[in-house]
């Protein structure tokens, strides 16, 4: 009989199951056994952060930090579930604003004010205006970890030369460019519409140019009906006019900015312009170095809207990204993270790496370094843009709570695809005012 064999088969199945259980339990949780951890984003300043952690770990075997890098959209989802599950990384990558407020309210991140009092150098090196974004109710919960990220209008110089036009200075200029590029079978504007937030950049700039920073401030303060401000209606009508004119590349709704397909359109000569955060520069430098080396990448500020109230020097974007320290981390991990923030981050070589990668850190007294860096023109452009801006508006989806931010991105997406009118947009968004 083969009964013996069968029994062995079942036994081995059972054994396999047991082993599996043991194996998977053994390898559980990053926070529990693996020491300090940090999560950050791919693209942009990824290389600088990677190098920094590698150097740190090589020199500090006792307080190693295990860094992981995620794509933007994936990260934003993961970090919320991870924090909610009490399984956050020791160093949490953030933007400040409403999300940080929520983490603070739920006691998920450490108040760093004490450490800063003991160690003023921790905060003193940063530009105060940028540090402000990491503060809630006067206490510091987050410190800048990479470059300033104003949103810039990038363009392909080669295509502008070919068509024989100049970069737009006003909104009317921009609208006039659209048919000229289309005639040559070039998409006027690249945009990663599937990621939604690139569309928000258009909204933020237009509203600011038309109505000034007060318009969004009223929204952030939760004034009833604040989304019905005429500047918002006007901005949204302009957006839909641009869509109607065919300003955005064909299929922009299915292009994901996460996969950098939007900047690929710019440097492969399929699209002439792209409105994007300053991190697009290092991203392009990474994937198409020759495009930058041959000086084909142009950059300028967002066009002025005739008769608008906003100062043309105002900018939107992210003042910087930030590290927060998880309140739920073990004492040892916290110490490792804090000593990294003090000594490992934004030290001389860190700043140099950011600059040579094409980012401008929000650090005081780097004018000399800027001039000596690899791309002095671009870096000075970004630095001056940020330093001279009367108002640097944090991206709205970050400034608001996640729920409001999600509603905003959704409604804006529908506005871009013309599923809703500007009036419906305002009505829908007014409903979110006062929501947590």
């Amino acid at each position, binding site marked *: 009989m083969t*009964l013996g064999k069968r029994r062995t088969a079942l036994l081995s199945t059972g054994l*396999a199951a047991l082993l*599996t259980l043991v194996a*998977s339990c053994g390898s*559980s949780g990053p926070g529990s056994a693996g020491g300090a*951890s940090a999560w950050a984003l791919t693209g942009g300043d990824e290389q600088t952060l990677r190098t920094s952690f590698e150097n740190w770990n090589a020199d500090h075997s006792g307080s190693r930090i295990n860094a*992981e890098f995620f794509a933007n959209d994936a990260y934003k989802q993961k970090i919320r*579930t991870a924090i909610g*599950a009490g399984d956050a990384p020791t160093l949490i990558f953030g933007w400040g604003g409403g999300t940080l407020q929520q983490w603070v309210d739920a006691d998920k991140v450490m108040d760093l004010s004490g450490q800063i009092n003991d160690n003023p150098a921790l905060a003193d090196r940063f530009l105060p205006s940028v540090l402000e974004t990491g503060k809630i109710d006067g206490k510091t919960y987050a410190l800048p970890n990479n470059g300033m990220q104003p949103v810039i209008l990038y363009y392909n110089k080669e295509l502008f030369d070919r068509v024989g036009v100049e970069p737009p200075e006003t909104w009317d200029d921009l609208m006039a460019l659209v048919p000229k590029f289309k005639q040559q079978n070039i998409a006027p504007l690249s945009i990663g519409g599937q990621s939604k937030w690139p569309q928000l950049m258009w909204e933020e700039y237009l509203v600011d140019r038309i109505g000034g920073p007060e318009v969004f401030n009223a929204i952030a303060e939760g004034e009833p009906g604040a989304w019905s401000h005429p500047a918002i209606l006007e901005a949204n009508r302009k957006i839909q006019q641009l869509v109607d004119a065919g300003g955005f590349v064909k299929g922009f709704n299915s292009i994901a900015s996460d996969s950098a397909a939007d900047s690929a359109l710019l440097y492969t000569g399929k699209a002439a312009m792209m409105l994007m955060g300053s991190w697009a520069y290092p991203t392009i430098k990474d994937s198409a170095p020759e495009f930058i080396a041959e000086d084909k990448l142009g950059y300028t500020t967002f066009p002025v809207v005739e008769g608008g109230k906003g100062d043309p020097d105002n900018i939107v974007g992210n003042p910087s990204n930030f590290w927060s320290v998880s309140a739920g981390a073990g004492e040892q991990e916290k110490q490792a993270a804090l000593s990294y923030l003090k000594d490992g981050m934004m030290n001389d070589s860190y700043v140099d790496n950011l600059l040579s990668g094409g980012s401008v850190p929000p650090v005081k007294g780097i004018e000399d370094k800027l001039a000596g860096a690899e791309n002095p023109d671009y870096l000075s452009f970004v630095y001056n843009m940020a330093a001279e801006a009367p108002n640097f508006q944090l991206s709205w989806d970050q400034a608001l709570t996640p729920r409001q931010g999600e509603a905003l991105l959704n409604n804006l997406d529908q506005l871009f695809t013309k599923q809703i009118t500007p009036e419906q947009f305002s009505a829908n968004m007014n409903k979110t005012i006062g929501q947590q």
Partner: protein
Amino acid sequence: MAVNVTRTRINVPGGVLAFGWLLVVLLPVYYVVLTSLRSMEGFYSSNPLLPPAEPTVDNYGRVLEDDFLRYLLNSVVVTLGTVAITVTVSLMAAYYVVRNGGRLAGLTYKAFLLGLAIPLQATIIPVYYLITRAHLYDTLLAIILPSAAFAIPLTVIILANFLRDVPGELFESMRLDGAGHWRMLFSLVLPLVRPAVVTVAVYDGLQVWNGFLYPLILTQSPDQRVLPLALWSFQGQFQVDIPAVLAAVVLSTLPVLALYIVGRRQLVSGLTAGFGR
């Protein structure tokens, strides 16, 4: 197995449809394999449906360097773990349902029948909550446990239906020999339902192997990442490097493809477990 042998004329509409659909099936497969062999420059400049002028396997190298084998191992562990648990407890339950004809057994069977109708998606929020409370978040076990739970109803039902066909006298004679339930399960039931066990194991295994939602919600770190999720994150990681992303797609399919080539019959019967007639 009745086959219509008399139909020898050529079935023209059937043939046209069959070859048309074949093109539909093969076009994306062809595109994926082809693109995975392209260099980045080739990807931008050449006709996407013609073979690359200079094929390269560099993309595969890049994917393999990027911890692909770890994700593969994770997928294997999750799949084997889930299948082992599911099949073991389901076989026991099926034995109980069939051999114990009582009311409780009937109710148990009905409970599993009802379980078939629960969509897995609808319970993710409480499952997420349970897993975090049990401190299992971001472990492979977090994927295994709920996956097994949702595989159990169908597995029990299929195995029970097979067991029903085992003649009662066999059990009787063993019982007279003084055999207990466990011995009967091991030495009588298991050998008899082995084909059914293979079938459900393949079916459950494929479901878990390709599962996306549980890994997405219940794990986070690359250490615990399984293949379908890895494909998704490769998209963010490799950015515009579509050839590398598609190379990862090809690599992730190879294990199942190998299995398909080796054991096509079992795999196909497993794929339609419980539904074929």
